[in-house]
Structure formats: C-alpha cells, structure tokens
C-alpha cells in the first residue's frame, strides 16, 4: 500500500493512526461517553459527521483563511456543524440528546476535529480531506465502541442496555466509573501498540505535524512569537 494513496488516507485512521489509541486525541469524550455502548456509538457518529463536514469546508477554504487567525476560523466552522448536529438530535433523537448531554456541545473542542483540520484538511484537497474525515471518524467510533463494549459488558453486565445472563451477576463496578475508564483506555492503548508494533508512526515521524498547536510553537516553526 502506497503511503499517500487515497486508500491509505481512509484506512490509516482505523488502526495505524487511530485518533484515540495512537494519536491520543479526544480523550475527554472517550472517557466520558463510553459507559454505555449506545452512548459511545452515538458520540462516535456525531463526531464523525462533524469531522467530515468540517474537513471538507476547511479544505475548501484553506487558501482563503489567513494563517494567523486560522484557529478561530476553524473553531467557527466546527461550532457551526456541531450546532447543526445538536439541533438535529434534539429534534429527532431526544433520548440520545439527553444521554450525551453537554458532551455533544463539547464536540466543538474535540481535539480530533481541530487536530485533523490543522494536520490534514488545511494542506490537502477536498476529496482527500473528506476521506480522512471518514477514516478518522470511523477510527474514533471504533475506539469508543471497543471501550464501551468492555466497560458496559464487564462493568454493568449488559450490552446496549440488554442484560447478559451470568455476567450480570459478576460485574466489576469500577469499570463504569472514571478510574475504570482510564484503566481500560490504558490497556487498549497497550493492545493497539502491541498489534501495530513497528508500524505505528513513531513520535518523531509525525513530530510537530501531529501537534495541533505546531503552527504557534516557536520550537517547531522557528518563527518568533508575535
């Protein structure tokens, strides 16, 4: 597989550059919305919708947005799409809207979306940015789901709200709480690192590019701060 082929842009988000387990972005919704499978799935889809739309628009405008105020511009675009998703869910899926609560609005400041805008959409064509959005969105959803399945099945003894016989009498309550979330998160990072051993990008190879604030950081750009 060629490094920059369209297929690799789509697929790399799933595992090799999984936004949650490899790039370690968007940890807040990852920990907060993975107590239940349904919540995690909804969060993943909502974030994916915002990610694809914002990637496309930011890529379209990448030559128009002045470099110095790009972050506020990205945030305005992202916040616009988040509001659309939020209103849509409020109108048609009120139960999910209540379940996700404040975390739905917080998609605006989700590092994955801003990170992909900065790392990818601002430098690539519209089609590739859309593919990147799909890949990263799927990777995010997959990561949330895998965490939620572990946490809900073993922590609450149910899957998507349906109780599982036997396991429901042998639950490990800590998994549904915050410390359990961190524990499962750490173990899954460990598993993904073991799976992609030697293939995942090393810290150096995505170095400053992987950092959302790279453009403002003196040590990366060499530019004086103004």
């Amino acid at each position: 597989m060629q490094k920059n082929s369209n297929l690799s842009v789509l697929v790399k988000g799933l595992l090799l550059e999984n936004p949650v387990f490899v790039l370690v972005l968007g940890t807040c919704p990852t920990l907060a919305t993975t107590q239940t499978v349904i919540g995690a799935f909804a969060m993943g889809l909502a974030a994916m919708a915002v990610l694809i739309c914002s990637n496309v628009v930011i890529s379209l405008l990448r030559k128009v947005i002045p470099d110095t105020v790009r972050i506020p511009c990205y945030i305005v675009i992202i916040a616009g799409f988040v509001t659309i998703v939020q209103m849509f869910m409020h109108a048609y899926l009120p139960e999910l809207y209540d379940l996700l609560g404040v975390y739905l609005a917080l998609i605006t400041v989700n590092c994955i979306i801003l990170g992909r805008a900065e790392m990818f959409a601002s430098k690539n064509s519209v089609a590739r940015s859309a593919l990147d959005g799909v890949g990263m969105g799927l990777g995010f959803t997959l990561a949330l789901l895998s965490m939620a399945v572990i946490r809900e099945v073993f922590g609450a003894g149910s899957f998507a709200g349906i109780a599982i016989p036997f396991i429901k009498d042998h639950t490990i309550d800590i998994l549904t709480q915050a410390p359990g979330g961190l524990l499962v998160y750490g173990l899954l990072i460990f598993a993904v690192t073991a799976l992609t051993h030697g293939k995942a990008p090393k810290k150096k190879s995505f170095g400053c590019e992987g950092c959302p604030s790279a453009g403002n950081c003196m040590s990366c750009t060499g530019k004086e701060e103004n």
Partner: protein
Amino acid sequence: MGKLHISVSPHLHSGRSTQGIMRDVVFSLLPATAAGIALFGLSAVWVVLTCVFTAVLSEALFNFIIKKEQTVGDWSAVVTGLLLALNLPANIPLWQAVIGTVFAIVIVKCFFGGIGCNVVNPAITGRVFMLIAFGSMAQAAFPVDSTAAATPLVQLGEGTVPDLLELFLGKCGGSIGETSVLALLIGFIYLLVRKVISWHLPVVYIGTVFLFTFAVQGDLTVALAYILSGGLFLGAIFMATDYVTSPATPAGKLIFGLGAGIITVLIRLWGNYPEGVSFAILLMNILNPYIEAWTPRKVFGGKKA
C-alpha cells in the same frame, strides 16, 4: 564455573537476598494466616490459596509472555498474594479474589517493571481496587462463633466500644488477617529479630493514630479500641514497611508513619469509608519519592551535611 560479575563498589555483601527477606516476610505472616483460618474457617483457606496461586501464576505467565527473566523464584509474588488475601473478607467470591490479585501483580507490579520498580504497594493497591470495584468488599465476614453484626470500626462509629481483649485476640468481624492483633504482633517481633524491618514506621504510624484519636475522642479505652480495630496493625507492620514504597532513612520513616496515621484517622472519623488504612498507605506510597528527596541518606565516609 560461576559467572564473573563486574560491578562498581561497594563489594561487601551482607549475604541477604531478596529471596531470603521475602521468605522471612511469608513466615512472619503465618501466625496471622493461621489465626484467620482458625477464626473464619475453611473459606479463609480457599481465599488464601486462590490469591497466592493466582499471584505466582500471573507473574510467571507475564514474564513468560513478554520474554523477561523469570522472577517468580524471589517469593515476592507469594508475599503479595498472601498479603492481599489477608486483606480480604473470608466470604469474598473467589473470582473477585482472582481479578484483584491479577490487578495487583500484573498492572501494579509487572507493568511498572517488576519487583523494585513498582511505585505503589501491589497488595494495598489491589485491595483499594477491589474496594472500589466490588460491592461485596464492604460486607465483612464474621468469625464462626461471633454474634456481632457489625465490624468494630462500624460499632465505634455508632458509639459502642467493643471488648478490648476480643479485639486483641481477633474475635471480631473484618478481613482474614487483620483481626488478630496478637498474631500480627508475633509476626512483627519475628521481623524485628530477623532485622527485616525496623521499628520506626509501624510504631510511629500506630502511635500517631492512637494520639490523634485520643486527642479527638478524649477517652483512653476508645482510642485503644480504635488502634486495635480494622487493618491498622496489618497495614502498619506488613504493608507500610514495604522496602520499595517506603522511605529508607529513619527520618523518612517517621514522616511516612506520621502522614499515614493522620490520613487514617481523618478517613476513619470524618470520611465516608469506615476504614482508612489502605487509602492512607496508598497516598503515602505516592508521596514517598518526595519524602525520600527530603531525607537523603548520608553517604558513608561522605562530608557532613
């Protein structure tokens, strides 16, 4: 022919090994184990066997899987398993004991690099994990012939003072190894005689709890009942003194004991949990690097500080 070791000085060796020390700790825990089995019956035996077996097996498997040098022979996994078992109520479901032990050995100890590299005591962290993870930890087991319906600390919280002699002998509810202060003291004396631990930490820890409780409650019997109840002696003698996670100098041990004592009383008297020993030791474990930095060891032959 033996391997030739090249190392920096000092070359003097006391002849003590990790293995020997750990075996001494196991021996010193035997009275408490025996007392626990005598008090709580056969179910205690199963919990102890499950924990020790799981501890040894999970460390061996972990080292095998990551192709690390096998360290099971140093007995430290046995100590962790045994200590964790003594910290559990006898009626705990065995599958929960297995999960707690695997957590203590694999996540707390092996992930951080094995013996000597863990930042917190595996057994105490395993206990805290199980306390948060499983509701059944809150329901203490009671001795076979006991009529009490609450653990001594719960009774004290409600204002009744349990019989001091019964507390000393361990005829009260609680974890397998924590109730019999007499058996724990026998182990303490053994450790002191074998020079495995020094007296500083346990004595300061228990003394702080006694004085602080006495200052707040203003009654000698109540203060005595408080130090004889719960896991204080087990924690102070066997878990707070873990080499890896407690200070090496006497001054550091005093600070550690003082801090652990204060936290224990704060949790016992004003906290949500009836018992605070495991949380206190865990918190002081985390502070340990700072205590070590404040109380550096004087280098033999070095300049006066």
